[in-house]
C-alpha cells in the first residue's frame, strides 16, 4: 500500500534580513526525505533551528513568515501538494491534515467559544451537520479526559487551564476525521506532571481514531513513547531515520547516540560535611498579598556540595532563592550562611555576604547587560570586590574564561555575539569571579538544548571539584537533579515535602507527590508511559 505522506528531497528556504546588510537567502531544510503510512506516527526530533517545525508545516504546504518550499515533492494521498493553488490547499488544510500548536493558549481565538472553534473546520468543509459535529466534539472531549465534556465547549479559551487547552486543540485537530495530524511540541509548555497526562491522552486518541501523525519535539524520551518511526534532524539535514526501537537501542550516528545518552552523567553523592547554608523555618510572602509563598522551609546545604530544589511552577522554589539572596526578606525564620546569621534584607548585608553568595539565572540573555563586553561583565566583580584593575584584571578575566572552556578571543565580544551555551558560561564565570562559597543556580539549563545543557552541567561539576563551591540548584527537571545533586529538597505549594540525601530522597517508599514527580520524568525506553500510568498514585497537579 502506498504511503499516506511521502516527502522526497525537500528543500526549504527563507530570506533573512540581517540589520545593516543586504538580505540573503538561507536554507532551512536541505534534501530531506521521509514517509508516513496510514495510522502510523513519525517523530521529528532535533534542537532549536533543526527545521523540524518547518518540515511539519510543509505537510500542509504552509511556510511561516516568508518561508518558501523551493525543491522536492510532498506527496499526500497520491498527489504532490507543493504545486497546488490556494483553493486546492484550502480544501486540504483542516480536512486531510490538521495542526496542533505548541501554545494552544495563543492559537485559540480569544473572542469565540471553544465549541465553535473545535467544530469550525468540520462545518466549513461540509463534512458533518452541526449536531453531528458537536456530538463528535463532546465524544473527543471525553476521550481526551477533559472535565464535563458536555459543557466544556461552552467556555472561552481564557476560562480553562493550559493543559486543558492543549487537549481541546487536539480535539479540534481530530474532529474533522483527518488522515494526518501535525503535533508541534504539544506538551513542551506544560509542567512535567501535566505533560505526561496530555501525552497519554494524545497517544490514546491517536490510537483510537487510527489517524496518522507527525510528532515534533526536542525531547527524544517523549517521542519514544508515541512514535513508530523517528527522524533525527540537525541544522536542516537528516542525521538518522529509522524505527523507534533501532534509534533508541541501537543508534548508528554519533549525534543520535549523544541524544540518547544525554543526562546520564554519573555523579557520586559526597559524604556528609558541615553546612555552609542553613535555612531554618523560613516563611515569606510578597508585599500586598496575604498568602505565604514559602511555608516553614528548613534545609541545609553542606559546603562544597549541591542541594537540588525541585518542584513545578508555583511550588515556591524560585521564591526560596529570592529569600536567600535577600530580595524577599522572610517574615519568619532565620538563614545562616558561612557561620554567621544573614540579615533578611539585601541592604543590610555586608559586602562579604554579597560576594560569597552569587547567582546564575535561567535566561542568560537577560542576565547580561547587552551594552557591556564579556570582559566588562566578568571584570566588574573583580573590580568591585577586590579592587582589581588594568592588566591584572584582564589577566584574571582570561583565566576565568579558560576555566569555563571558552579560551581566547571572547574577552572583547558582546553577549549578542555568543551562542546560548556560551552566554550561560559567561554568567558562570561572572559568579566565579567573586570567589563565592555558594552559587544559586535558578533553572540554569532549562532554556538550553539537551546537549548544550549537558555541557553546562559537566562544567558546573568540574568547577565544584576545583573551587569547592556549593550550589543551590533550582530546577523542575529530575534528570538534572539526578545528574548533579548531593542533597534534594522536593517542594510543593510552598512547602518542602521531602528532604534528605540524594539516595534517601530517591529511594522508596515515596510520599504521593514525590512519587508523581519522579514517575513523570520521561525515560528513554519503550513502553515507559504505559507502565507509569498503571503504577502512579496521584493525579497530576495541573488537573
Amino acid at each position, binding site marked *: 500500500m502506498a504511503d499516506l505522506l511521502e516527502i522526497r528531497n525537500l528543500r526549504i528556504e527563507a530570506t533573512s534580513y540581517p540589520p545593516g546588510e543586504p538580505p540573503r537567502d538561507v536554507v532551512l531544510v536541505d534534501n530531506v526525505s521521509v514517509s508516513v503510512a496510514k495510522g502510523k506516527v513519525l517523530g521529528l526530533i532535533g534542537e532549536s533551528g533543526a527545521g523540524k517545525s518547518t518540515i511539519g508545516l510543509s505537510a500542509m504546504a*504552509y511556510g511561516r513568515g516568508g518561508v518558501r518550499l523551493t525543491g522536492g515533492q510532498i506527496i499526500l494521498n497520491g498527489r504532490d501538494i507543493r504545486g497546488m493553488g490556494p483553493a486546492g490547499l484550502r480544501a486540504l*488544510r*483542516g480536512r486531510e491534515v*490538521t495542526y496542533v500548536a505548541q*501554545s494552544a493558549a*495563543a*492559537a485559540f*481565538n480569544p473572542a469565540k467559544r471553544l465549541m465553535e472553534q473545535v467544530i469550525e473546520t468540520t462545518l466549513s468543509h461540509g463534512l458533518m451537520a452541526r449536531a453531528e459535529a458537536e456530538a463528535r466534539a463532546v465524544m473527543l472531549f471525553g476521550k481526551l479526559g477533559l472535565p464535563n465534556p458536555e459543557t466544556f465547549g461552552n467556555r*472561552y479559551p481564557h476560562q480553562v487551564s493550559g493543559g486543558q487547552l492543549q487537549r481541546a486543540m487536539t480535539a479540534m485537530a481530530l474532529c474533522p476525521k483527518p488522515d494526518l495530524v501535525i503535533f508541534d511540541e504539544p506538551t513542551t509548555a506544560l509542567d512535567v506532571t501535566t505533560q505526561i497526562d496530555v501525552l497519554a491522552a494524545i497517544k490514546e486518541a491517536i490510537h483510537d481514531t487510527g489517524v496518522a501523525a507527525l510528532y515534533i519535539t526536542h525531547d527524544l524520551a517523549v517521542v519514544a513513547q508515541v512514535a513508530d518511526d523517528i527522524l533525527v534532524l540537525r541544522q536542516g539535514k537528516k542525521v538518522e531515520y529509522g524505527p523507534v526501537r533501532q534509534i533508541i537501542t541501537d543508534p548508528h550516528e554519533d549525534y543520535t547516540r549523544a541524544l540518547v545518552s544525554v543526562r546520564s552523567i554519573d555523579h557520586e553523592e559526597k559524604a556528609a560535611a558541615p553546612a555552609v547554608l542553613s535555612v531554618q523555618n523560613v516563611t515569606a510572602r510578597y508585599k500586598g498579598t496575604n498568602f505565604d509563598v514559602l511555608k516553614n522551609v528548613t534545609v541545609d546545604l553542606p559546603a562544597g556540595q549541591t542541594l537540588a530544589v525541585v518542584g513545578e511552577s508555583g511550588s515556591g522554589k524560585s521564591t526560596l532563592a529570592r529569600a536567600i539572596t535577600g530580595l524577599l526578606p522572610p517574615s519568619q525564620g532565620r538563614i545562616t550562611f558561612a557561620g554567621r546569621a544573614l540579615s533578611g534584607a539585601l541592604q543590610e548585608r555586608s559586602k562579604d555576604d554579597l560576594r560569597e553568595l552569587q547567582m546564575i539565572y535561567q535566561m542568560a540573555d537577560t542576565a547580561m547587560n547587552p551594552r557591556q563586553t564579556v570582559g566588562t561583565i566578568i571584570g566588574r566583580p573583580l573590580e568591585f570586590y577586590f579592587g582589581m584593575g588594568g592588566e591584572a584584571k584582564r589577566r584574571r578575566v582570561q583565566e576565568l574564561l579558560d576555566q569555563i572552556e571558552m579560551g581566547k578571543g571572547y574577552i572583547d565580544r558582546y553577549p549578542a555575539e555568543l551562542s546560548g551555551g556560551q552566554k550561560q558560561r559567561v554568567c558562570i564565570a561572572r559568579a566565579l569571579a567573586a570567589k563565592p562559597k555558594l552559587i544559586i543556580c535558578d533553572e540554569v539549563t532549562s532554556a538550553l538544548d539537551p546537549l548544550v545543557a549537558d555541557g553546562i552541567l559537566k562544567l558546573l561539576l568540574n568547577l565544584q571539584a576545583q573551587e569547592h563551591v556549593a550550589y543551590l540548584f533550582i530546577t523542575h527537571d529530575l534528570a538534572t537533579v539526578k545528574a548533579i545533586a548531593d542533597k534534594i529538597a522536593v517542594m510543593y505549594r510552598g512547602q518542602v515535602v521531602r528532604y534528605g540525601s540524594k539516595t534517601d530522597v530517591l529511594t522508596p517508599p515515596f510520599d504521593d507527590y514525590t512519587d508523581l514527580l519522579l514517575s513523570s520524568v520521561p525515560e528513554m525506553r519503550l513502553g515507559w508511559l504505559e507502565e507509569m500510568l498503571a503504577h502512579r498514585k496521584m493525579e497530576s497537579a495541573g488537573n
Partner: protein
Amino acid sequence: MHPILKLVAQRIALGLLLLLAVSLLIFLGTEALPGDVAQAILGQSATPEALANLRESLGLNRPAYVRYFDWLGGILTGDFGVALTNGQDIGQAIGQRLGNTLFLAACAAVISVPLAILLGLIAARYNGRWPDKVISGVTLSTISLPEFVAAYFVIFLLTQVFPIFQPVAMVFPGMGFWERLQAVALPVIVLVLVVLAHMMRMTRAAILNVMQSAYIETAELKGLSPMRVIWQHAFPNAIAPIVSVVVLNLAYLVVGVVVVEVVFGYNALGQYLVDHVAKRDLPVVQAVGLIFAAVYIGLNILADVIGIVSNPRLRHPK
C-alpha cells in the same frame, strides 16, 4: 453586579474625578500663578482704580478656595458668569458657538473615519507592498504639518491654483443645511487631512497586530477562506482597538478645530477662546478651556469603556 458593569462604572467615576481635578488645575493655572492676576491682565500701565475695579469684579479679595467653589458651583448649575470685556453672558455665548464647532468636527469625522479605516485596511492588506508604502509615505509627511500650515497649503491650492472654493467660512444663524455644508467644505478638508494620517496609521497598526496573532495562523491552517478568516477571526478581535483608535483621534480632532477655526475666521468656540486669551478675559478662558477639556476627557472615557466592553476576558470572567 456583573464585573464588567463595575469596571465601566469605575472608569466613569474615575473620569469624573479627573474632570474635577482638571477644573482645579485650570483654576489654579489662571488664578494662583505667582504675581497679581489683575496686574497681569491689565498690564503695567494700569491705574490703581482700574486694578481695584478688576479685583472687585473677579472677587480677588476673597480667599482662593471660596472663589473656586463659587465658580464650580456656578458651572454645575449652568452659570458660567459674564465676560470681563463686554459683560456678555458666557453661557449664552458658548451655546451659540458650540453648535458650530460640533458641526465642523462632525463633518470632518463623517468623512475621515470611514476613509481612515478603509485606507488602514488596504495598507494592512498589502503590508510592505506598494499600496502600503504610498499610503504610509503620504501620511508620514502630513503628520509633520501643523494644522495651520496644512490649511494654507489647501487654501492656496483650492482657491488660487484651482479656484473652487471661497477662502473664508462664514456661517450665520438661519443658514440652510446645504449652504452651511458648502461654507465649511474647506475647513473640513483641512481637518480630514490632519486627522486622517494619525487615524489611518493607528488603524493599520491595530489590524497588523491582530493579523500576526497565532490564532490567525490556526484559522489559515484550518483551510478557511480569506474572507472567513478576516470576518470570523480577525474582525471580532480588531474591532476594539480600531474603535478606540477612532475615538482617540476624534478627541484630537476637537483640538485641531481651534486652529482651523481661526484660519478660516469660522465663528465658533475655538475662535472665541483664542480671541479672549488675547484679551485676557479670564472667565471666558476658564469656561471654554473647561468645556474643551470635558469633551476630550469624555471621548477618552468612551474609548476605554468600548475597550472594556469588547474584551472577551472581561465579558466572560472565569
